[in-house]
């Protein structure tokens, strides 16, 4: 589908435009070379979704442009089979004076559709965009959400072999986003490949089969989406120097053992020495939905520390973030004497749907882990919600509805 083979891309930075000409004439190097992409390889097969994450300026956009073919690589090659449509050009080339209906033809032709295809798909495009009669109004009268809806609708109907998606899924309202998501999943199920670039880590975890992390133009990590996201978090926490090489992290024991904890990272001034989860009724790490569970953390400090925050995050088996908070938000700052050990409990009613969950915990400063992170443990604990302590329900969370008959009118 998409083969990117050891591709590198340099940008030549000229301080003055005329330097290009001077360089051509005098054969003297007058530019600086900036490496945008270095030796990146991708092999994306049919039906696969590859996530690309990384900080701003890591080379994500350059990579997408190379794949799209709007810029050419300096080294290596990009091979595509079939039509590649980018959702990054949503709305490019819309003529604001023409109606949405008239714009479909031009935009679709830009994406490579033939006129026969346009004629055939036109109604489907209009229907999917849900613009109704507004489709016959000039595009300049559209809201940005409406424009995006039309653009997405054209792009998805262009029948590509591969989609390149760049942060474009924040299209329209929640209803339309779900529709897009559903359509993208159908597209994948139908054998389409997707290259997905996003800062929405949840979307990456839900949608992607594999993911890669870019940093300074290089692939620094490639693996499962969850690992990649964890790696990325570590990266933005600027803790690369203490980050151990991240191998497969299988969440295992209800009681985190030493090796589990040793895998964490952080400055270590305050650290998590152990953790345990127990359902109050079951007495184990398997408990029923709605049961109260105790998460007990064994914390230790090497020197006196004020206002330390303990944070945690529960994820489901797909790696989706389910619930997370920290003691800072809950108004319970921790302080330590030098060498002190504290056993700390967080007690929660586990109003979660049945399934496997993991808990990631961290010790840090203030409200987030980005500035000062003392200790971060991915997938510290695993637990399972099995069965129900109350009535049956479907879904991720237990909302405990109450039922009332308000009035009865006799027939």
């Amino acid at each position, binding site marked *: 589908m998409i083969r990117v083979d050891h591709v590198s891309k340099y*940008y*030549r930075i000229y301080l003055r*435009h*005329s330097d*290009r*000409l001077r360089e*051509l004439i005098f054969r003297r190097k007058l530019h600086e070379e900036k490496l945008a992409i270095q030796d990146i390889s991708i092999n994306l097969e049919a039906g696969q979704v590859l996530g690309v994450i990384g900080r701003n300026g890591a080379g994500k956009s350059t990579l997408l*442009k190379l794949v*799209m*073919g*709007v*810029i*050419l690589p300096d080294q290596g090659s990009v091979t595509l089979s079939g039509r*590649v449509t*980018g959702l*990054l*050009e949503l709305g*490019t*080339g819309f*003529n604001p*004076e*023409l109606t949405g209906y008239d714009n479909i*033809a*031009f935009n679709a*032709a*830009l*994406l*490579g559709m*033939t*006129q026969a295809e346009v004629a055939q798909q036109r109604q489907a495009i209009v229907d999917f965009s849900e613009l109704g009669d507004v489709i016959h109004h000039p595009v300049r009268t559209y809201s940005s959400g409406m424009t995006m809806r039309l653009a997405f609708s054209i792009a998805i109907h262009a029948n590509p072999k591969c989609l390149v998606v760049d942060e474009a899924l924040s299209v329209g309202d929640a209803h339309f986003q779900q529709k897009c998501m559903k359509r993208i999943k159908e597209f994948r199920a139908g054998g389409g490949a997707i290259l997905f670039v996003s800062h929405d880590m949840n979307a990456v975890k839900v949608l992607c089969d594999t993911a890669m992390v870019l940093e300074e133009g290089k692939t620094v990590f490639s693996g499962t989406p969850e690992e990649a996201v964890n790696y990325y978090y570590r990266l933005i926490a600027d803790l690369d120097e203490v980050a151990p090489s991240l191998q497969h992290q299988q969440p295992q024991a209800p009681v985190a053992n030493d090796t589990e904890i040793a895998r964490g990272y952080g400055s270590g001034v305050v650290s998590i020495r152990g953790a345990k989860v127990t359902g109050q009724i079951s007495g184990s790490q398997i408990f029923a939905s709605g049961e109260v569970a105790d998460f007990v953390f064994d914390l230790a400090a090497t020197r006196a520390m004020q206002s330390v925050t303990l944070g945690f995050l529960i994820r489901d088996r797909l790696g989706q973030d389910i619930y997370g908070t920290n003691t800072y938000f809950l108004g319970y700052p921790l302080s330590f004497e030098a060498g002190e050990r504290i056993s700390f409990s967080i007690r929660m009613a586990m109003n979660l749907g049945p399934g496997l969950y993991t808990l990631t915990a961290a010790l840090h400063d203030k409200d987030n882990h980005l500035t000062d992170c003392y200790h971060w443990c991915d997938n510290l604990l695993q637990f399972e919600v099995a069965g129900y302590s109350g009535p049956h329900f479907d879904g991720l969370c237990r909302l405990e509805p109450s039922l009332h008959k308000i009035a009865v009118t006799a027939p």
Partner: protein
Amino acid sequence: MNLALLWHFVRQDFSDRYSGVALGRGWLLLTPMLQILIFVVIFGGLIGPRLPGTQSGTYGYGIYLVSGILPWTAFASTIARMTTVFFDKRAILSKVPLSLNLIAIHIPIVEGITLICTLGLFILLSLALSVPLSAGLLALPLLIICQQLMAFSIGLIGAILMVFLRDIREMVGVVTMLWFWMVPIVYTIDSVPHFMQAIQAFNPAWWFVREYHQIFVYGAMPDMGNIMQLLAGSVLMAGGILWLLSHSEHQIRDAI
């Protein structure tokens, strides 16, 4: 080459220019109509000098003027717009994989269509003033293709150089203005010093302006051998420039 997409670009160009305007495409004809009228009536009929050897009588000079200015205008504006075409279209080029050729070639087509419209008006006006027309009109399509192909090639050189030097846009403006006065459009070739006549052999604009004069002013058949040479030259030149374009594609895409 995706012809449907090319046609879309051409249509888009026209609708970009005149959409949102109440009179719409009417302006496409109104402005040149007025221009032609002014040249023919004022310069030809009222204050115009007599042109020797013409059959068009009183309007001789006006006809001479317009028959040169219309093709020149198309030629010059094709070159000017070609020079900046990649920059003007960078919003699309930086997001959608389109061939540079396709983007470039819609400009001479748009300007060629405009030229056909203005020449059509000119012919109608000539009929109204009962200026005799000749069978030479049949050669017009070929002549238009030749001159637009040449403008395309020259403009494409500008477009490639634009990547290296932004001043090219201004330079093209200055050069075409000077060039206009180097071509016998306002004056006749017989009225200038001998060396000016001699250099016309190397003036590509004169190669086609001369033939428009033949058709409209002298009511004669254009020199077909000449037109064939012009066509061969333009095709060869366009081929060479397109080869150059394919070799500078990398830089152009990086620069926009």
